[in-house]
């Protein structure tokens, strides 16, 4: 990357700076030296006859300093440094985009809304101190409910971190129904950890008791896993021979914590992918092309202020696609309620307008543009992308 050129130039500046500063020191030392010599001469004259009067010593000093020209000396060393500094700055401007605000629309974000978004983000990250401080500094309304909910989550996670399952188990028990609705296996996973601990300790009856109390109620949704878990009871004492043991022993506590926070956010009606992080990440992927466009558009930037749609598609990647859109491969139109996607008998999909056009308004059969099959409008089915 071009940053290397900048780094090289920068290190050069640092070297020149050191040179210039030792040069400064030398200049000062030299003046000092002359001053001290003059001082000595004046003082040493004490008891002698005045062969040299102070005035001529000072005159000598002046001509010595004039000859040496300290101001010129200082200037010349700095001059080169200054040139290097400006050069380095230009290299930086070349390597990186010097003004990313060019891609900005002239709109103002509402301060209150921004503060709320940032506070939510900080609390969601478990940065309670910073969040509280921001609330205090901005006078934003306190987010007491959210704060206490998130505090609970971070306390559970903290306990999990120290291998204390109890708070997590309490939480999944209270939220049993909702977790089941979400199809989460978190409850099973947590009980599985405790169960396997008992198995490892070699206590068959304790393990069995635990399984009856906590695993049995989960049987209907996790039969497979529970069968394997129960099978481990047989191998107690010689677990290394158990075909499932390695599979079932949960060693990745971090993953367990991740799943817990995912479910926790879900039950709060939020997402564990923090919205501010998602939006800023999307911004970092969009800005480069947006800035390229601004450079191309040049003077026409006023158009940018009013555009209804970005002038180019941005591929943010799979994990940023939250909605389905259908674009008809023939007309390039986006599917709408009035012009929905239609499934042809051959499996190809076109928008309704294309089909009507090809069938001359439903007056005859037509050939699919993507395969040799003939269809009639009646054979086509409207599709819904929920």
């Amino acid at each position, binding site marked *: *990357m071009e940053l290397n050129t900048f780094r090289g130039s920068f290190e050069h500046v640092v070297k020149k700076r050191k040179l210039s500063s030792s040069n*400064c020191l030398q200049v000062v030392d030299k003046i000092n030296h002359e001053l001290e010599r003059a*001082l000595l001469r004046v003082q040493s004259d004490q008891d002698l006859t005045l062969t040299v009067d*102070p005035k001529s010593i000072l005159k000598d000093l002046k001509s010595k300093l004039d000859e040496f020209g300290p*101001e010129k000396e200082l200037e010349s060393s700095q001059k080169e440094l200054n040139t290097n500094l400006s050069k380095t700055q230009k290299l930086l401007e070349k390597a990186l985009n010097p003004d990313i605000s060019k891609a900005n629309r002239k709109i103002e974000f509402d301060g209150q809304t921004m503060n709320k978004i940032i506070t939510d983000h900080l609390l969601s990250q478990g940065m309670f101190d910073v969040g509280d401080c921001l609330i205090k500094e901005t006078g934003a309304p306190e987010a007491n409910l959210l704060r206490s909910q998130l505090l609970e989550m971070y306390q559970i996670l903290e306990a999990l971190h120290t291998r204390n399952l109890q708070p997590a188990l309490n939480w999944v028990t209270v939220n049993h129904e909702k977790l089941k609705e979400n199809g989460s296996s978190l409850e099973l996973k947590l009980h599985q950890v405790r169960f396997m601990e008992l198995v490892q300790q070699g206590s068959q009856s304790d393990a069995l008791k635990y399984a009856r109390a906590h695993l049995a109620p989960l049987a209907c949704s996790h039969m497979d896993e529970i069968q394997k878990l129960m099978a481990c009871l047989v191998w107690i004492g010689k677990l290394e021979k158990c075909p499932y043991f390695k599979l079932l022993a949960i060693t990745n506590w971090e993953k367990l914590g991740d799943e817990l926070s995912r479910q926790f956010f879900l039950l709060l009606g939020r*997402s564990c992918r923090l919205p501010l992080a998602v939006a800023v990440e999307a911004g970092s992927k969009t800005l480069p092309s947006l800035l390229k466009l601004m450079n191309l558009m040049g003077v026409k930037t006023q158009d940018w202020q009013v555009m209804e749609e970005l002038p180019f598609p941005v591929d943010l990647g799979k994990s940023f696609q*939250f909605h389905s859109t259908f674009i008809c491969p023939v007309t390039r139109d986006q599917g709408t309620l009035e012009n929905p996607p239609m*499934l042809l008998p051959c499996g190809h999909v076109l928008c309704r307008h294309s089909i009507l056009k090809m069938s001359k308004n439903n007056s005859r059969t037509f050939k699919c543009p993507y395969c040799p099959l003939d269809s009639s409008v009646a054979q086509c089915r409207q599709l819904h992308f929920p």
Partner: protein
Amino acid sequence: MEIDPLPNGNTATENAAARPASDAVASLAAAAKAAAPALKVSHLSDSLKLEHQFLRVPFEHYKKTIRANHRSVEKEVSAVISAVDSSSSSDFSRDDAVSHLSSLVSRLQGLKRKLEEGSRVENLQAQRCRARLDHLESADADNLSEWSNTRLKRILVDYMLRMSYYESAAKLAETSNIQDLVDIDVFHEARRVIEALQNKEVAPALAWCADNRSRLKKSKSKFEFQLRLQEFVELVRADNNMRAILYARKYLAPWGAIHMKELQRVLATLAFKSGTECATYKVLFEVKQWDNLVDLFKQEFYRLYGMTLEPLLNIYLQAGLSALKTPFCYEDDCPKDDPLSQESFRKLAASLPFSKQQHSKLVCYITKELMDTENPPMVLPNGYVYSTKALEEMARRNNGKITCPRTGVVCNYSDLAKAYIS
């Protein structure tokens, strides 16, 4: 991303020797694995180009310190030299000469200490520039999520500093251990000026202008002129008319050549006084003029340090929300993973453009995954489309029965049709 080639090469040959048949498959898989991070890395190097301010501010700070230190050395040396010059032509007694020279020597000692202190500060600032370069270069496919997380924190600190939430900014930087990656110290300089202006004091602002005179002049800044105008208006407000006229003569007249019109307008306040109802002049007496000065100062300050004029957070959010915004975002069933499902983000995005769609992109309602050739869309008899993966899993769990999650319609897995969507 330097990888020691030796141990890697060794394991590769060992594997190849053990399973020669799978050699080709393994290398194909490795190639595929390598391709994905490559895409990430190209995204990454593009987004690193957005980090100009991140390097520029500490560099500018470094430059500024170097120049200021040098100026003060030059000034001090000239002062000593001219003291020597003037003494050489005066009739000093011996004692006078001794005390004169001694005072100059101790002055130079002071300068030397200052030089050493200056060098120390310059070294620290150079170190900070390096730390930032290192941080940018440390970003690679393996630590991307951690790196992005730090970037967001940097962006938030930038926002807080610009909004004068200094305590929160310091706390966030400290808890995240990113003090070297944010510009808290640079904003100290701004804070003094801003807080003085909020208290209707112009002295620190004027001192700041004096410190940066040549650069402000180069950018044709009006800030100092505005400060002087405000001081004048305050004199008129206090009915201190004679002083106001003297002030105008001394501090406003020099700007006449460039800002004559505005100058005339403000001087006319002398005739109207602060109670005026005349709109043109009333506005000059309004308290919000001080807020305007704060805003103007901020703009000059950002420009001087090579910062963006808008907070980084706003710039990233504008671009990001535009790329995410679709007409579906404003419907109730916008998924929670989408920032635009939240009212606050919808509000921000209200006057931003929509994203552009060029190809069909289908997201499975059940798994939230993108449908593609590996996980193609399947159509229920009622026309609803879900991913093959989701429907297979549903059929597996329910003896081949499929229940449409949106309409409740039940059908058999065998009733599904394939759809080809390009």
